[in-house]
């Protein structure tokens, strides 16, 4: 039954794509985030739906789309360089078979991110892309949020449609992504035009934000809690009454604590006592191993290079109470421990050059959005959406990169769609400025003529 519904849905979306080819781009975004072929048992997984969507998107862009004044941003060049560099490291990877498997999805994510901004020629297209990303990821988040609210969940136990812990369906990844999309949801509750912000849009938006905040609770991923902290700090930048906001946030946190499951509170408590926790202490050892490894392999070991690590560490725990407290060190050995950090993932797999390229792509995004945020800070009402959108994209990116300190999500396709949207916004505005003859945008063009004295 579900299979038939998926087929009907995709059939409808593809049919609409033949009316307006940009819908094919959105179809690819949807397929990449939701992966309906993995929730389906027959028919859908027999068709290469993802390849079909991207094929139609590229062909229709080549054949029909207006390419006048097409602009390419430096970051697209950087992504192309990273793509070529990753190809090179894949050909000389320490684990060629595993590396080829990862390359197979990485190249698609990067290539799509390079292509995506070329299609984002209008404001509505940028909005449509972000809305499709949000509604697609909302599928996972609402289901996770509802199950958490009804008492499900647990570390590695929250059932999110697909059991194989891949893509966005892994607990730590989805809890970081769920928090990073909150600034974008807030933008839609104020500036959306596909669904103009009325009480329905606002209610849906706020409930979705609540579901997003429940994801770290449901998955018990500590990364998510840290991301919520950063989100709270970032939101301080734009609130009008800061002290009221701080008081409100603190009160909300205090009220929320009694409702949190005990298992969640206990696990979050281990952020401070990380040495007693195998998951956290192995991370630090893996990071040390990576830095050692890259000393002898400055160009990295190719994808999945972590598979060769063997880590010996002491798990430290305290036994007893009061005066009779003793510290117990238990030696542990772990093999093929994943990086658990996007930064170390890039250093270990792609070496220093790959890491530098990756960092430039991401830091470049944050800097460019800051430039747009300030340039369009005071604008006429028809441009009032620009600065908040640049801010939302920047905050989403910062939260993602913060979460990425503890999760290996350096090349996750979702963030490259976000990067694509940022570049799209940037080149769109550059085109607009060029059309307006380099008039400074912060001067009111529609100001009335001075009255004769």
């Amino acid at each position: 039954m579900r299979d038939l519904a998926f087929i009907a849905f995709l059939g409808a979306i593809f049919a609409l794509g033949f009316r307006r080819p940009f819908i094919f781009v959105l179809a690819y975004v949807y397929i990449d985030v939701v992966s309906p072929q993995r929730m389906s048992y027959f028919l859908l997984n027999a068709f290469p739906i993802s390849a079909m969507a991207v094929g139609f998107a590229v062909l229709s862009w080549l054949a029909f789309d207006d390419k006048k004044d097409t602009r390419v941003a430096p970051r697209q060049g950087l992504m192309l360089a990273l793509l070529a560099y990753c190809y090179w490291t894949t050909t000389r990877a320490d684990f060629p078979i595993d590396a080829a498997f990862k390359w197979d999805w990485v190249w698609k994510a990067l290539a799509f991110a390079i292509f995506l901004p070329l299609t984002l020629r209008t404001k509505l297209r940028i909005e449509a892309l972000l809305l499709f990303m949000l509604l697609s990821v909302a599928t996972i988040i609402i289901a996770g949020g509802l199950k958490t609210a009804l008492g499900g969940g647990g570390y590695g136990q929250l059932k999110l449609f697909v059991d194989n812990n891949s893509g966005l369906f892994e607990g730590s990844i989805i809890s970081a992504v769920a928090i990073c999309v909150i600034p974008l949801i807030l933008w839609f509750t104020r500036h959306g035009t596909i669904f103009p912000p009325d009480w329905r849009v606002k209610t849906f938006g706020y409930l979705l934000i609540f579901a997003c905040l429940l994801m770290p609770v449901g998955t018990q991923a500590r990364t998510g809690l840290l991301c919520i902290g950063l989100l709270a700090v970032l939101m301080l930048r734009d609130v009008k009454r800061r002290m009221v906001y701080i008081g409100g946030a603190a009160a909300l946190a205090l009220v929320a604590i009694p409702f949190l499951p005990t298992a969640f509170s206990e696990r979050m408590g281990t952020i401070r006592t990380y040495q007693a926790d195998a998951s956290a202490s192995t991370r630090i050892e893996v990071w040390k191993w990576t830095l050692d490894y890259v000393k002898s392999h400055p160009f990295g070991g190719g994808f999945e290079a972590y598979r060769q690590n063997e880590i010996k560490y002491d798990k430290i725990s305290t036994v007893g109470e009061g005066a009779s407290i003793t510290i117990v060190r238990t030696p542990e050995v772990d093999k093929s421990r994943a990086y658990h950090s996007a930064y170390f993932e890039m250093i270990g797999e792609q070496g220093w050059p790959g890491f530098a390229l990756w960092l430039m792509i991401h830091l470049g995004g944050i800097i460019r959005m800051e430039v747009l945020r300030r340039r369009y800070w005071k604008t006429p009402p028809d441009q009032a959406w620009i600065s908040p959108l640049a801010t939302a994209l920047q905050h989403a990116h910062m939260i993602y990169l913060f979460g990425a300190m503890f999760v290996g999500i350096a090349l996750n396709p979702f963030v490259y769609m976000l990067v694509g949207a940022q570049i799209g916004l940037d080149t769109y505005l550059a085109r607009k400025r060029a059309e307006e003859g380099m008039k400074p945008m912060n001067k009111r063009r529609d100001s009335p003529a001075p009255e004769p004295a």
Partner: protein
Amino acid sequence: MIDSLVLGLTHGLLLLTAWRLIHRPDLDDESAPPPGEARQNRWGRKRA
């Protein structure tokens, strides 16, 4: 049960988004008149 409900909700919204988009001329060309205006003009012409 929850899964099916949520799939229905978000996929319905995705489809509604796509449906609304195909009726927006500014999806492909921002110099095109907004849909409200275009409809009004058409009405106007019919009445005239």
